[in-house]
């Protein structure tokens, strides 16, 4: 009996040792990636929070801890108005980018879901802008939209319309940046939707046809619900990417005119490198990080109830 019990204990101990060896192996496998993330992602985030409590300007070697001074500036001081303005601009931009990506992408996908060389070539043309550097395309768009020498105003004049200061008016500057964005993202949305459409079993459509469903009904009641995981993926990735918009704004408008395109990341950049207030840039970054995290979590939570998986 005791031998038996001892044997069981020994087997359990061996199993435990085996499990811990396996866990150690697993850990060793992920350790390099984890170390990379700790050093280059999590440590900078922690540092950012710490810098927010100092008066460091990046250049000085010495700095003091100033408590919540920078946070007070952000919530109670002159920073508050600027924060709200930049968040309003950023959310507006994000709303439109998501709309263009999702609505434009799905419409184009429905339109280009054909198998022929011509359609394949057209799909490539639509997708290509995604792989042109933003700075390069932004410069080209600046010249297209230039109020004095741009081709857009030239065409408008041909039709008798008044030229507009596309990038130099606060009414049109953000929309002009969104034109570039739309040109870049709509093809990407189309490709993602197209690959998802190809994964939908044709049996659903055949069954619906037999039941007398027309093309619109098939799209509304089969395609759209089965594309919802793709829509969620596109929504979340586009949301995060567009909230962090910087390059197109930096090249095309520099946050202007009159801060009408001063998106949050551009504002953070200016605080750090133009105003030399990296302490303030740090608190804005921290808050923005929390906003992004909370918004993404909320989106995932709300969307998960409305996402339909084919299986």
């Amino acid at each position, binding site marked *: 009996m005791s031998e038996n019990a001892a044997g069981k204990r020994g087997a359990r101990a061996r199993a435990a040792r085996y499990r811990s060896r396996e866990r150690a192996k697993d850990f060793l496998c992920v350790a390099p990636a984890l170390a990379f993330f700790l050093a280059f992602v999590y440590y900078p985030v922690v540092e950012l929070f710490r810098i927010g409590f100092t008066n460091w300007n990046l250049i000085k070697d010495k700095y003091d801890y100033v408590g919540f001074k920078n946070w007070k500036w952000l919530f109670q001081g002159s920073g508050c108005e600027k924060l709200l303005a930049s968040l309003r601009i950023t959310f507006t931009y994000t709303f439109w980018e998501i709309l263009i990506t999702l609505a434009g992408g799905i419409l184009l996908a429905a339109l280009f879901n054909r198998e022929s060389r011509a359609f394949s070539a057209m799909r490539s043309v639509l997708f290509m802008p995604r792989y042109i550097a933003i700075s390069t395309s932004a410069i080209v768009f600046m010249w297209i939209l230039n109020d004095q020498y741009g081709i857009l105003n030239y065409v408008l004049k041909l039709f008798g319309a008044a030229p507009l200061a596309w990038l130099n008016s606060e009414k049109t500057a953000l929309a002009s940046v969104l034109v570039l964005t739309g040109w870049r993202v709509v093809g990407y949305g189309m490709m993602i939707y197209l690959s998802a459409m190809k994964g939908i079993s044709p049996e659903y459509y055949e069954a619906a046809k037999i039941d007398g469903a027309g093309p619109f009904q098939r799209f509304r009641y089969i395609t759209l619900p089965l594309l919802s995981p793709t829509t969620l993926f596109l929504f979340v990735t586009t949301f995060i990417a567009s909230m962090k918009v910087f390059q197109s704004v930096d090249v095309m408008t520099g946050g202007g*005119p009159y801060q009408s395109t001063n998106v949050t990341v551009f504002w953070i950049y200016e605080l750090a490198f133009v105003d030399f207030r990296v302490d303030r840039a740090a608190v804005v970054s921290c808050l923005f990080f929390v906003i992004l995290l909370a918004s993404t979590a909320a989106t995932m939570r709300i969307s998960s109830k409305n996402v339909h998986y084919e299986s």
Partner: protein
Amino acid sequence: MSSIRQAVAALALAALAAAGAGAQDAKKYEVKAPVKIQWWHALEAQYAPLVDKVVADFEKANPNIDVEAVYQGAYKDLNEKLIAAQAAGTTLPGLTVANTPLVAEYGASGLCEVLDPYIKATGFDVKDFGPGLTASTSYGGKQVSLPFLISTQIMFYNKDMADAEKIKLPETWAQMDEFMKKASKKAADGSAQRYATVIPGWDQWYFEPFYLNAGVSLVNKDMETTDLGGAKAVAVARKLKQWCDEKSAYWAYGKDASSVMRQNFIDGKTFSVIHTTSLYNMYADTCKFKVGMHYLPGDAKRDSEVGGSVLLIPAKNSQEVKNAAWKLLTYLTSKEVNMYWARGTGYMPTRESVTKTAEGQAFLKEKPAFKAVFDNIGHIYPRIQHPAYSAFAKIWMQEMAKVIIEGGDMEAAMKKAAVLLDEALQD
């Protein structure tokens, strides 16, 4: 007699001791072993042959020092990289250029090596730069950088047009109204056919002299307030708006405003533009007409400000690197090399031993338009040095552009701006 002899002997001894100490100090800054240093600059590809030649000549004269010249983009990009390197403390260049308005912030933050001991020990003639440029490159009474590619504000004008239409360029602010009328042309519907001038609103440096010459104190002595909300400043701002409203001038604003302004001048759509002297070569080479330079009109005084770039040594470098960088710095700012830059670019000769001598006259023969600058070289003053001036300038530019382009009451706008500007300075 013996007391006189004793005094002379003591003086001689003191002089010898001082000379000995000087020589010893100079030794401290010598490059004793081979060293490699980086020089960060913002000279675009068109200047690469100039940079390569200067570096090759230097290396030939200083075989111990290997220089790697690195183009780091525009001043803005270079500033970002320099700040990042300073924060990291590991990838700093031995020597770097910096845009003139950054001297104050860099100096205040201790980024730059204080050059006074080097100057003293090696007998470098810093006075030859003149008081304006020396002050521009100092901070808190210490020499933290040296003038490199220096420019100032200027009015470029179409000389052929001026001669043909007998347009008199304004010497004073009071003459500006007449000039605006004479040099601009309007269509029957009141739209502009040709502007008299273009005022760059994308950088306050270009319109700052109008305020300074009118006696406006941009940053008061307390360093915390501005007079930009005062009557003098409002009067200047109203005039600028009036000329833009009348379509005699336009306010160039936005990211592409500089290139559009240049194109308008090249195309003859404006009689003149206010820009930096550093672009003289570009205008002279591109325009199909003769390009003249006219010093900006004055009011209570007629001054302009220093622009361009300075050279500095990051203080965090090792002494060995700093010594090599000092050698390179003295070479790059020497009279010969300075003239080489001035000829190859549109930047100005910086040394009085050039501007006030026959060499200067020879330079004027090559570039006669620079007479406008040489005649006023004593009136080129340092930029305003305040660590918060970048933030200040951003607010000012934005408020000016908004009222001039979008419309509104200038006095109310300037008063509102003054509150924001005071806040920025006090911050």
